[in-house]
């Protein structure tokens, strides 16, 4: 291998022309990922991008890394195989709200509970884009789509709650229109050892344009969004004059000076779960940043530690031992 050189974001771009719709939030996400990979200094050959099916899942084709564009919903399972087979690889899963939470919901929760060391970016646009506009498992009730012309009657998942409930060791949320924040969150995810679940609010300009504008629009975002920073007081508002205070199992808005500090590293998933409850309260801002970041052994490490310890105990197995066992007998 040639000497290690400092790569730039563009070095992570493949020669394939990107085919997302003009104005799609995906452009900003891929630029952020490329920038983060360059910043953290990982070799391109050691990165594997695994995706399922959907608009976001074309992502690996546009990355100059190893990539696997698989089948609908199964990216987490394939990525688990890649990572357990070769733990030296840095594995990213690129998925969407349909791919990762509907058809792939099962693999999502199980990869999180196993704490496979991989970074999962869930592009949440609350709609099926590639099939041209049907409601998804994160679409709000009442959303009118081609398959819910009179409004969706399905209750949605909150992706963060699902990840927390499944035991994810890293849970975060960011959004496509804030590249700086997105890079911070993705860098933290990349640095996390274990399953890192990152929900990205991603605007689909064609089928669900403005899905998040009630919170993210320039005119309202200061009051409607709050950025969580580890060890920092939880403040928001145009003049940073408001704060959130943890009050039992709830949060309440208080003057900034009384705001609680945010700590995503506490053992209990309780505070993070309480934080996700803001999503259900129209009077509260929506939280962004790292909700939870804790350490527990990863599946890939545990698998190989077990192989090593059994091998140490029993000695390295030989093919002959598989065949010629003590219960053999010989005929002359």
């Amino acid at each position, binding site marked *: 291998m040639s000497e290690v050189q400092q790569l730039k974001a563009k070095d992570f771009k493949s020669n394939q022309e990107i085919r997302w719709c003009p104005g799609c939030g995906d452009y900003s996400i891929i630029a952020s990922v490329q920038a983060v990979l360059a910043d953290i200094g990982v070799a391109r050959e050691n990165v594997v991008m695994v995706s399922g099916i959907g608009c976001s899942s074309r992502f690996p084709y546009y990355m100059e890394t190893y990539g696997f564009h698989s089948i609908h919903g199964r990216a987490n399972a394939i990525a688990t195989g890649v990572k357990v087979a070769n733990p030296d690889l840095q594995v990213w899963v690129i998925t969407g709200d349909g791919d990762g939470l509907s058809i792939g919901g099962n693999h999502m929760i199980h990869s999180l509970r196993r704490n496979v060391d991989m970074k999962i970016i869930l592009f949440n646009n609350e709609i099926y884009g590639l099939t041209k506009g049907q409601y998804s498992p994160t679409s709000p009730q009442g959303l009118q789509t081609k398959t819910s012309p009179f409004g969706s009657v399905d209750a949605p998942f909150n992706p963060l709650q699902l990840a927390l409930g499944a035991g994810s060791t890293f849970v975060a949320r960011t959004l496509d229109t804030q590249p700086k924040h997105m890079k911070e969150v993705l860098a933290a995810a990349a640095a996390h050892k274990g399953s890192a679940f990152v929900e990205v609010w991603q605007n689909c300009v064609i089928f669900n344009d403005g899905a998040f504008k009630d919170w993210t629009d320039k005119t309202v975002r200061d009051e409607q969004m709050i950025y969580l920073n580890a060890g920092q007081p939880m403040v928001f508002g145009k003049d940073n004059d408001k704060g959130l205070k943890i009050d039992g199992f709830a949060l309440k808005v208080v003057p900034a000076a009384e705001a609680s500090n945010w700590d995503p590293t506490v053992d209990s998933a309780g505070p993070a779960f309480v934080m996700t409850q803001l999503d259900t309260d129209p009077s509260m801002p929506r939280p962004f940043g790292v909700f939870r970041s804790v350490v527990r052994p990863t599946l890939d490490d545990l698998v190989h530690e077990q192989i090593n310890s059994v091998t140490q105990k029993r000695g390295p197995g030989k*093919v002959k031992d598989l065949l010629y066992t003590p219960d053999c007998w010989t005929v002359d």
Partner: protein
Amino acid sequence: MSSDTSEITRQDDVTIRFAGDSGDGMQLTGTQFTDTTARVGNDLATFPDFPAEIRAPAGTRAGVSGYQIHFSSADIYTPGDAPDVLVAMNPAALIINYKDLKPGGIVLVNTGSFTEKDLERADCKTNPLTDGTLSAFRVIQEDINQRTIEALAGTSLGKKDVLRCKNFFTLGMMYWLFSRPIEPTLQWLTEKFGKKPDLLDANTRALKAGYNHGELLRLFQGRYDVPKVDNVEPGTYRNIMGNQAIAIGLAVGADLAGLKAFLGSYPITPATDILQYMSLMKNHGVITCQMEDEIAGICTAIGASFAGHLGITTTSGPGLALKTEAMGLAVITELPLVIVNVQRGGPSTGLPTKVEQADLLQSIFGRNGEAPIPVVACSCPADAFECAVEACRIAVEYMTPVILLSDNYIANGAEPWKLPTMESLPHFEVKFVTDPEGYTPYVRDGKLARAWAKPGTPELMHRIGGLEKDAHTGNVSYDPDNHQIMCETRLAKVMGIRDTIPTPTYFGPDAPDLLVIGWGSTYGAIRSSVEALQREGKRIGRLHMRHMYPLPHGLPEIFASARRIVVPEMNFGQAARLLTSEFPQFKFETIHKVQGKPFFAPELKAHFRKILEETA
């Protein structure tokens, strides 16, 4: 135990069926008798037959679990047809099984489980021990429950645990009756219960008491010996079950490819044992992941293959159906993968613990798009090893998923296996690409296998996936001509496997009146019945297929020599249909059976005899 004075009669061929309630330990009794018999040097074949329910209501017909062993002084190919001896631990076991027994056969009945209540549970209006049901047999009645309690007098175990030892008492009696040594089982008990001295003591005492009981009480009119096979090929042998053979074959196959085996799987009857066996192979570097479902099982295996391991997934019919889409992904990404399907009765959940061969066409054709996958079928437990190695070879040499078909009969059946010498194993070591010069993801070798570059290799970064790719650049391509080329190339690659597989051997006279074609676990019954008819001078021959897709070269030449061709199958004629479509110039007659039971040799013999008579 050397004071035995009973006269020993020589028998060359014996079939015993142990039958009892699911909780009576009949499978264990059977496997212990089998292992000991293998050590004695008999040829043998076994057929466990148990219900899908782990514990159906005690004493009912639904809960009867059976284990048949056929052992002989000569080579045998089936677990026997009509048993010579039936061991019936309760009325339900007796009622379900006695009709299969040979006239004059021995029935050993545990009368301790023939109370009114036991009869009622088994739905017996009258007592079969007294109502004449068993008039054609030699019935030996013994209260095995009581004898076991007596043998274990003074034990610290409770009554329930004492009674659980009755299978070892029974085993001891059968060891005496057939002049088997009890030492192998004593040794097994020591290993199994070394840390539980009370259980070790109880089972040891039960076994010895049962053995002595045969001698002391003269229950049987003399005893038997089945001498070891004399003309056994020299070599090292071990007793093997099909699932075990596949597990070993896959691990060895991966090693021969120079790869680590990675098994992604999900428990399903009757394939689960393979996952269990391979989970024990950690010091061989075998990685096993019990995943959340069948789809995740195959997908982790595909991911592992992408990362440079030999991905393997194991399942049975319903699981194969679930893996269908992922198999297509392995076809289009051209990654090596071994998919083991241990067939059971279908459709749907069907008969989970019974045998059937009805997944052949699903395996060959059951995917969306033109998605050719080679299919290899094993014929018996010993053959399962070779077939597993062969599946690994095809997978890595051709960069393709391969389906290995087994079935419940092979999976749980046991037979002596002549171990291959290390030198005789094939070699097919994988060479990963590391040189960027001229590399594209779909650059191919002479066998049309694409180059395998694994992540972590500098300068070979590439993307694969389920979308069609350009034959030259490996980028996504919707070009119509390119898709045609890629589909044709994938098919030509798989068809090319024919050049590396042998034509199945034909056994029989030239220009036979009847050619019998078999595949899978019908091997033993076909071989036994055909050889019996050949001994009568009938012009009948047979060939057994291993490679079901692609079909080997040389078949039409063999087919053309026969006046009639028949294919017995445990389905509605799937191989016959396949052969008919490949070779429309021949007529393939069928014999079907979908009863969850294997073919028996006499049954096939009667079919073949009828055809031969028509032909004469």
